[in-house]
């Protein structure tokens, strides 16, 4: 039971890393990506191949997975962002990109096609995933509060005005995309070394959609919001396992309910913080005393 719970937590954390990455892109520049599973897959395969075939050190492989994803992020981002594709066109471009990567993985020699890579060393443990999550959250937070993060918000709110203020639209968008791709790649690397078997069909557009749903439901413009949403989305199907097939219905209902009752997402553009939690608790207490 304990290993089952720690397994779910590890799983959630891996997806949190990918979702936080996507939040930096979609949440802060306003461009939707429907192909983020591709970055996840690229990271998983790069890291997996390195440890499986070449006995590379796990951490090195993980970093390489992130780096490779970032590189591919530049490759896909350069033409699409340079052309200033608007949101829906960009989303379709990423959709195509996601599928293209999956097909590529199915047909390459080194990825062993649809057979996948069985027996990748299981290096990802709960502490490893937790450690990486903390680092990613910390870097994401710093990014958002940096000059680039603020510029990204300005771009999301009104890109013409942002350009008039002297913001380099292309640079800001590409930077967030690359950061988000790196996060996706690292998450993929952790995933590969957690489940120790990967195959292309694990990285379909379903995964991309799930990540995007987490970001939207968690709140565009928040980092902790999507993180919380991811955990909820992973935990709920597990908690409801007793309800067998009905759990997927519950999952769908939850998504609809969030969008209807909180269209701005669980946290909106706010962040979860210790100070905020404290304030909320004291407010509750004060209200309680008031009533008492």
């Amino acid at each position: 039971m304990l290993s089952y719970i720690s397994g779910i937590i590890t799983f959630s954390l891996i997806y949190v890393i990918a979702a936080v990455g996507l939040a930096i892109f979609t949440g802060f520049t306003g461009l939707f990506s429907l192909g983020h599973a591709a970055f996840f897959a690229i990271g998983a395969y790069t890291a997996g191949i390195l440890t499986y075939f070449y006995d590379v050190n796990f951490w090195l492989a993980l970093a390489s997975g992130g780096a490779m994803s970032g590189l591919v992020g530049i490759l896909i981002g350069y033409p699409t962002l340079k052309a200033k594709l608007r949101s829906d066109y960009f989303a379709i471009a990423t959709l195509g990109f996601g599928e293209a990567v999956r097909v590529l993985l199915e047909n390459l020699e080194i990825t062993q096609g649809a057979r996948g890579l069985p027996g990748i060393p299981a290096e990802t443990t709960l502490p490893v995933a937790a450690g990486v999550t903390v680092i990613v959250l910390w870097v994401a937070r710093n990014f958002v509060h940096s000059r680039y993060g603020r510029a990204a918000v300005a771009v999301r709110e009104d890109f013409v005005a942002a350009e008039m203020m002297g913001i380099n639209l292309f640079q800001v968008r590409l930077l967030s995309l690359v950061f988000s791709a790196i996060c996706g790649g690292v998450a993929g690397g952790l995933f590969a070394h957690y489940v120790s078997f990967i195959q292309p069909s694990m990285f379909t557009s379903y995964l991309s959609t799930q990540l995007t749903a987490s970001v939207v439901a968690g709140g565009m413009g928040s980092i902790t919001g999507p993180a919380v949403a991811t955990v909820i989305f992973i935990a709920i199907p597990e908690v409801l396992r007793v309800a067998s097939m009905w759990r997927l219905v519950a999952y769908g209902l939850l998504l609809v309910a969030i969008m209807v009752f909180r269209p701005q997402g669980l946290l909106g553009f706010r962040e979860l913080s210790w100070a905020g939690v404290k304030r909320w608790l004291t407010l509750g207490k004060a209200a309680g005393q008031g009533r008492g």
Partner: protein
Amino acid sequence: MLEISGLQVKYGEIHALRDVSLKVRAGSIVAVVGANGAGKSTLMLTIAGLLPPAAGQILYEAKPLPRQAYEVLARGICLVPERRRLYANLTVRENLLMGAFLRRDQKGIRADLERMYKLFPILHERLKQYAGTLSGGEQQMAAIARGLMSRPRLLLLDEPSLGLAPLMVQNVFKTVREIRDQGTTIVLAEQNAFEALAMADDALVLETGRVIVAGSGRDLLNDPLVRKAYLGIKH
């Protein structure tokens, strides 16, 4: 200061500007007058680097103007876009600070904020208010102030009188003159032809992408064609 020659701009198949030439002398106000769809905004956006020219040349201080908006701003040309485009969910003060995005001199920025409060006393009262809650005229003032925060040497104003009450229009134009007197050159695109021509040193009239008349503001005010077509004065 700015010299445009033979400028052509296209939106796909549509020819928005044909062979437009324009000279802007330092310290002057240049008015670009014309009806809806004449190409005024296109001209402004092209100078600001948001649209690529299909042909022609834009020289700024004898050098070709860069083609990216952020580079153009760095050279000292700032566009106050049509419909103001303020950040509605930021306060007025934050909007003004956004204008100084490329600047790093904290002291200069603070001094310029003070300068803006003097130039636009109404903004001083509204500093902590969200920009979206301002009236149209106040928003226009805030947009101009935001543009000035980048310390441009050339300010492009695209339809600053759009949607404003007549009294507010007077106010905005008065401020435009003050800005020029403080040393910023201005190119003003306006449908409000009479006011714009009366205050302009030089002016041109655009019609379906072509310059049909150009000259000093005073000349154009007295030009029979302009009087008839744009000022509604019959002979």
